[in-house]
């Protein structure tokens, strides 16, 4: 029996069990559904406004954009938060104490976060279809685009999430990551086109994956003529592939190094020390 293959299989099962555990936990369900509900309500009220220069619903434009944003949240914040929590409660040390346990742990997390993200896509898309017009799901091209944008988005963000989760030890410092991401979302044309922003701000937005995931999702789900109101007047698939691909490569290079360093430093006394600190925060 090959230990690596065994750990990979155990990791996949781990992801499935964690998925079941998380979807039977009221707190987790609330965390998944509440933001989705808020976004849907926002889109409901935006549905009457139009994208500038067109008669297309602004709410319908926001639907694919926010789905792209959701992938960023899931991959980057979801994974990093889980890593931080799992380090604090000893889950990671447990994985380290198990033969090939870290491999199983990581695969489990990737399966879990990917599944949660995909379920999130469906949860948001399905109700949106009922009150937003112009989303093209019947089109084979739409599915084809989704089939590469969504996985690429996850590959671009999951390793970065692992890096962030490894570097941040104190859950309180998550704000350091969350606030810039919210800033980026405001810049990245998720809710409103950024054609009106100064050129240098548009430039900043286009360095990061949020903009490109939003664009990629719009290119999949919106009618082709909406491309005209994007920057450069096109869906820019090649550029999307290039920028998201570059982030994926960066993350995949960094993540193993940072993860290994983080795991090497884990020990019982570190977990105990973190617990002490957590107790002080609560108490």
């Amino acid at each position, binding site marked *: *029996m*090959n*230990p690596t293959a*065994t*750990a990979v*299989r*155990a990791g996949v*099962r*781990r992801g499935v*069990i*964690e998925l079941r*555990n*998380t979807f039977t*936990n009221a707190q987790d369900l609330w965390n998944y559904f509440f933001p989705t509900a808020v976004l849907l309500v926002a889109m409901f009220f935006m549905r009457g406004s139009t994208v500038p220069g067109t008669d297309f619903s602004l709410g319908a434009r926001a639907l694919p954009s926010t789905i792209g944003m959701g992938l960023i949240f899931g991959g980057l914040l979801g994974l990093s938060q889980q890593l931080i929590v*799992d380090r604090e*409660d*000893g*889950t990671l*040390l*447990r994985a*380290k*104490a*198990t*033969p*090939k*346990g870290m491999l*199983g742990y990581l695969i489990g997390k990737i399966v879990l976060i990917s599944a949660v993200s995909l379920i999130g896509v469906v949860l948001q898309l399905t109700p949106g279809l009922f009150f937003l017009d112009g989303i093209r799901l019947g089109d084979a091209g739409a599915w084809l685009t989704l089939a590469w944008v969504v996985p690429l988005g996850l590959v671009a963000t999951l390793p970065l999430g692992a890096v962030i989760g490894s570097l941040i030890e104190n859950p309180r410092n998550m704000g350091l990551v969350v606030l810039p991401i919210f800033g980026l979302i405001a810049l990245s044309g998720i809710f409103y086109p950024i054609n009106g922003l100064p050129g240098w701000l548009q430039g900043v937005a286009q360095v990061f994956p949020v903009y490109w995931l939003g664009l990629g999702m719009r290119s999949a789900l919106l009618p082709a003529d909406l491309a005209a109101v994007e920057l450069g007047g096109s869906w820019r698939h090649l550029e999307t592939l290039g920028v998201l691909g570059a982030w994926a490569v960066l993350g995949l290079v960094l993540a193993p190094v940072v993860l290994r360093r983080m795991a090497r430093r*884990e*020990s*019982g*006394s570190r*977990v*105990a020390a973190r*617990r002490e600190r957590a107790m002080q925060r609560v108490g």
Partner: protein
Amino acid sequence: MTAVELPGAVASPHPPDEDLVLDVRDLRMRYGTVDVLHGVDLTARRGEVLALLGPNGAGKTTTIEILEGFRLRSAGSVRVLGVDPGRGDERWRARIGVVLQSWRDHGKWRVRDLLAHLGDFYAPYATDRIPRPWPTDDLLDTVGLTPHAGKRVHQLSGGQRRRLDVAVGIVGRPELLFLDEPTVGFDPAARREFHELVHRLADLDETTILLTTHDLDEAEKLADRILILAGGRIIADGSPDELSRRVAGDAEIRWTRDGERFVHATADATGFLRDLLREHGDRVQELEVRRASLEDAYITLVHEEESGLRAGRAARVWQQGSER
């Protein structure tokens, strides 16, 4: 036993080296400029139960974490199951079980799911002698968690949670098990069951066990050999009886005579009793002789070590004392 290093002690019935599960020589650890371990020597044979005692801050945790492979040592030679734990691979990892104090993990998991899942990782490391992992139902039964198998981990009581930690520690049928204060939070019944489990692991499965505890009564019940770590070195190494005898303390004798209660401390308990009974005969009632206990030995040894450190010299004397 540290005596193994003394030339005169070679003839003692020490096992061949392959039976040495733990073999630590002159282990040193320095954090920054602070020396935490000043040359720890310890060995353990297969199936032996060792209790590592010592005051807080003596270096117990550091020592164990080095042996577990979770921390790199500064100097010294360490062999755990014949392997340097700083370079232990996954095959080595599979032969070791770790039960720490501070697990709070996997709260959303069901007990049975968790044990089955973690057990899966050990299957490729099964040998002819040791089938791995421990079958889940059998393991649940062994640690007394069968009635709680379907519960989520965060619903367990403190004692049940601890038993789960032990179950996870042994799911891979380790040849060497580290137990860090295993019975904190146990009620007396759970404690006794746990002690039976430890005996079973050591006697039937030949698991070598290194446990830390502050409960001297527990150490006396469980351990074949007790190591006292103080001031960064092993200051005593021997069976509970040997340690108690080493401290030449007075025995305490209590009795009642004509309804009156007496207590007398003496080095020569036998002589005193002979005289007492000759003089008062049957009027001596409720007679009790208490030799120096492990606790007395522990307190004395640690105190000597600490005051010796202050004086700056006696420490060596005790070190040699422990090597007999």
